[in-house]
């Protein structure tokens, strides 16, 4: 592991421990009360979810072009983190939506495209796990198509929704961009970088081990 890893890990741990204090001390939002506090973890998780999906798509495209195993490991690690952070978003999102819109789920553009992106990441992992030999390329192809699909999902869901307007008009949410929020964003981005590095490292070790096994056979 690189030298920076442990200090950064310690810093992230301290920051995450401190984050509830900051969140608790932040201003109460008048209409939503306590539920609004979910927002401080929800939004950073959503951003990291998006970042890791982009990392996975870009790394997959580069893997297809160059065939470099490094890009493949990066894409694999990013796909796993996309599923992880996507799960956080899709659990905390409905909690927030229930209070803000009165329903758990809305077929809104962002919700639908997040769900589809999350499903593509799941499909990626399923292919990697159960695809057998050659599944790395297969998964990379899937990620590429998934990335190309994003604008189309966005447009199609948008039109589908605007033609049949939702019964409850989604209120514009008051966004309090306070210190607590930016602190949590920093926490989540640090966590993402650390987990990504750790996961890539694990995959590197696995490759090394495989190579050693192969050389033992010869």
């Amino acid at each position, binding site marked *: 592991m690189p030298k920076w890893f442990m200090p950064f890990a310690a810093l992230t741990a301290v920051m995450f421990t401190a984050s509830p204090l900051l969140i608790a001390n932040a201003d109460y939002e008048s209409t939503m009360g306590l539920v609004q506090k979910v927002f401080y973890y929800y939004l950073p998780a959503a951003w990291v979810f998006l970042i890791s999906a982009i990392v996975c798509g870009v790394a997959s495209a580069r893997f297809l072009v160059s065939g470099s195993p490094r890009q493949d490991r990066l894409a694999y690690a990013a796909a796993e983190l996309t599923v992880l952070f996507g799960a956080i978003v899709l659990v905390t999102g409905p909690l927030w939506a229930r209070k803000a819109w009165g329903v758990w789920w809305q077929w809104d553009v962002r919700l639908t495209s997040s769900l589809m992106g999350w499903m593509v990441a799941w499909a990626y992992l399923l292919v990697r796990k159960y695809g057998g030999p050659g599944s790395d390329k297969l998964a990379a*192809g*899937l990620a590429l198509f998934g990335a190309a699909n994003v604008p189309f999902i966005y447009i199609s869901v948008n*039109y589908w929704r605007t033609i049949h307007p939702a019964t409850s008009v989604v209120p514009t949410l008051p966004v309090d961009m306070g210190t607590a929020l930016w602190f949590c964003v920093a926490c989540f981005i640090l966590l993402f970088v650390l987990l990504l590095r750790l996961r890539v490292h694990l995959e590197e070790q696995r490759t090394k081990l495989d190579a050693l096994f192969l050389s033992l056979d010869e």
Partner: protein
Amino acid sequence: MFARTAWLVLRKDLTVEVRSLEIAYTTLFFAVACVLVFAFALVKEGKAPEDGAAGILWIAIAFAGTLALGRTFERERQSETLRALLMAPADRPAIYVGKLLGIVALLCGTEIVLVPLVAFLFQAPLFRHPFWLAVVLVCGTVGFATVGTLFSAMLVRARSRDVLLPVLLYPITVPVIIAGVRATATLLEPDAELALVRFWVALLLALDVVFLTLALWTFEPLMTD
């Protein structure tokens, strides 16, 4: 040369299919069974829910399409004929296009039976705008089959290909399904807004172009060992 290779692959597939009719019959039967299940589930007091027919038509196409895709490439897997095909001194993209055309032909054939069946069972006025319905169906089928052919070709060597195909295919083809269902539902309305249908068709065409470009570009690297 490209067109000739594609035509030869298409002709080979059609010849094999015409001799046994295995995929055509099973796909068609499955699609009809699908429509019946939905009819039992959704039709209440003799009436289908609003937009139901459009959704059921597309679900049947998507499910039957998955079955046909899996079966077509399963056939190529026996005796490793796909490997032989790929080893032939021919353009890989041309082989892909030949396979794609075969699947599209098969699915269009299924749709010719499915559309009257859905119209009949759900009292849906599907034939009010036959031209636009045909355009929507063809564009949607091409979009679905473009991704499907590529993925099922890649999955030929994978272990659990039967389950992985729908797992990969459905999340990716969501925009095709949305656009297809919405366009068909618009056509079913008493005074259909053709401008809206044109928008969905344009979206489907754009999707077809993007998917086809990506598939032609990735087929070569993806099918190399």
